[in-house]
């Protein structure tokens, strides 16, 4: 167990370093000139050169990369020689646009993304797994057909469309919910849990509608497969109660692919619900990333991409561990 963990952690660290190197070089060799972007509109060549030195862009590529990576181990100084400012550990650089510390920007944005992720995950897991299980148990009947049909349509709904339609109906026409960006000023809602739910309900739904449709399909097909297995027949032959057959034997064995999917999706979502945050103007990681990408703010883009990759890689390790815990047939070694 410990050997397994150490091996996975080692591989994880290696993968992260490779990801950081590739991301860094992709952005480094991109044609965007961060120095003139940071310097502003009316900028003489002299000033651009100064900005270049201040941002450390005059140094060779490898020096820049190693300097950047050193921020993960210790604090470093950023800026032109003589005019440096400290960047505390863990240092992810400073925004080319606002000169803000990227670590602080991420610390501010992450809670908003978490807020969206928590509600969306709870909604889509309950709806997706619940309806998928129901469809599998009523296979071929009316309920199954309706659920399967709904899921087929659900997976075809792009998030921009769902999000804008939700805003149009609930905010524009019915006026029953607040426009998220007007009322969000703290990630977890200082105005209490009820205000938090009302604020985030539409972003949650925008994500949950698409994801629950996918979970319905995966849950249903896995459960149907499991229901046909020999051990299920044995359980039925033993005369166990239907409830015990379905939940104790069936779900425990058939749910593992759903758990894998859930883990990977949570990992992916923590890196920023890009579209949803943009539609509802929630200042989370995805929203910050879109603005950084369109304005050539490399340190911010770089940091969010790496953080998102980190979440995805961690999720894959966690999924393996959870897998072994719920499926009695899986052993870690």
């Amino acid at each position: 167990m410990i050997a397994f963990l150490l091996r996975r952690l080692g591989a994880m660290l290696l993968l992260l370093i490779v990801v950081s190197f590739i991301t860094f070089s992709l952005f480094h060799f991109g044609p965007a000139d961060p120095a003139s972007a940071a310097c502003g509109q009316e900028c003489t060549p002299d000033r651009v050169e100064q900005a270049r030195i201040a941002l450390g862009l005059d140094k060779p590529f490898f020096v820049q990369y190693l300097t950047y990576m050193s921020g993960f181990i210790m604090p470093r100084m950023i800026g032109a020689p003589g005019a440096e400012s400290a960047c505390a550990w863990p240092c992810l650089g400073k925004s080319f646009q606002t000169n803000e510390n990227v670590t602080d920007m991420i610390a501010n944005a992450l809670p908003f993304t978490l807020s969206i992720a928590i509600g969306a995950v709870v909604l889509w897991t309950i709806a997706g797994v619940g309806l998928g299980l129901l469809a599998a148990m009523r296979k071929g009947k009316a309920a199954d057909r309706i659920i399967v049909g709904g899921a087929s349509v659900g997976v075809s709904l792009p998030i921009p469309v769902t999000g804008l339609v939700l805003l149009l109906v609930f905010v524009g026409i019915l006026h029953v919910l607040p426009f998220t960006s007007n009322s969000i000023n703290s990630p977890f809602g200082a105005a209490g849990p009820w205000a938090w739910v009302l604020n985030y309900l539409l972003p949650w739904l925008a994500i949950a509608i698409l994801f629950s449709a996918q979970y319905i399909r995966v849950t249903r097909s896995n459960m149907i497969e499991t229901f046909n297995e020999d051990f299920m027949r044995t359980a039925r032959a033993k005369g166990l109660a239907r409830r015990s057959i379905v939940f104790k034997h069936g779900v425990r064995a058939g749910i593992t692919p759903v758990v894998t999917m859930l883990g990977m999706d949570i990992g992916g979502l923590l890196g920023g619900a890009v579209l949803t945050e943009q539609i509802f103007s929630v200042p989370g990681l995805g929203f910050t990333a879109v603005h950084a990408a369109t304005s050539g703010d490399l340190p911010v883009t770089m940091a969010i991409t790496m953080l998102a990759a980190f979440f995805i890689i961690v999720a894959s390790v966690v999924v393996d561990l959870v897998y072994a815990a719920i499926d009695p047939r899986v052993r870690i070694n």
Partner: protein
Amino acid sequence: MSTAATATAPPEGAPKLVTGRSLLGTAWMRIRRSKIAMVSLAIVILMVLFALLAPVLTAIEGQNPDATNTGPDVLDAFENPGLPLPGYMFPSAEHWLGVEPGLGRDLFARLAYGAQVSLIIALLSTIVSVILGTVLGAAAGYFGGKIDSVISRLIDLFLAFPHLLLVLSIAPILQSRLKDSPLAQGSFVPITSLVVVLGFFGWAYLARIVRGQVLSIREQEYIEAARSFGTSHLSMILKQIIPNVAGVVLVYATMMIPTNITAEAALSFLGVGVKDPTPSWGQMLNAAQQGNWYLNDPWFLAVPSIALIITVLAFNLLGDAVRDALDPKSSRN
């Protein structure tokens, strides 16, 4: 195996041989039996025709996608400046789908030319991903050893990257580089940049599937037989391996097209893909959100949304049908 059945025609005059149907032949027969599949196929064909015939259709309508109509008889000048007056907001004989708010351009013409852009991007990026995924996956599975471990690590790496975030950050970089190329005319830059980023970051999953298939094909007797004839590696991969993974590749390609249609819509919606004045369905969604037009002109949001949902749904249902037809085990029993 699939090629063997169709390769030899019975000699003249000989009694008719009973030959098995090829894999794709059987699949086509099953697809033809499914009503949903045939309706989806018809919709897909109609959408492609709609895109191809955009110049003809708009000529019949007598409009073009770039002509603005900002006169006071078309757009409101007082209460909601820029909002089309009722006679122009909705379908009419003059403007089949009404006009856009703001610039008063013809919506039908933009939808038709937008279909061209959206479908071309989805199709070409799918082709890029399919070629990369099939070739790399087949090479990994066929050669094994060092080549396999290099390609497999590459697949892990690509799957660990936060897909949307990376594509989102690279698209603007690529676009500003392409802008200086001599080919940069019309919609070349947005189309090429999206095809490259979506194609280049979309192959890993398919490669993993193909690799798994090839690993099992490699052990079959006919491969051993071909090897005993001294077949070269290249001809082995092209003539023996690839035809036998064609089914799986076809399934994933059909499913990748709607994913890429949605991805184009997402990126253009975020403002990093296709940009005004070039129309695409994602660009139209972006335009509907700009300045909150969709709140006062829901029709403007409905037009690209309905086109997107119908097309994505038709491709998804067709993909399901192709999968069920090629793999009887996975049928929706």
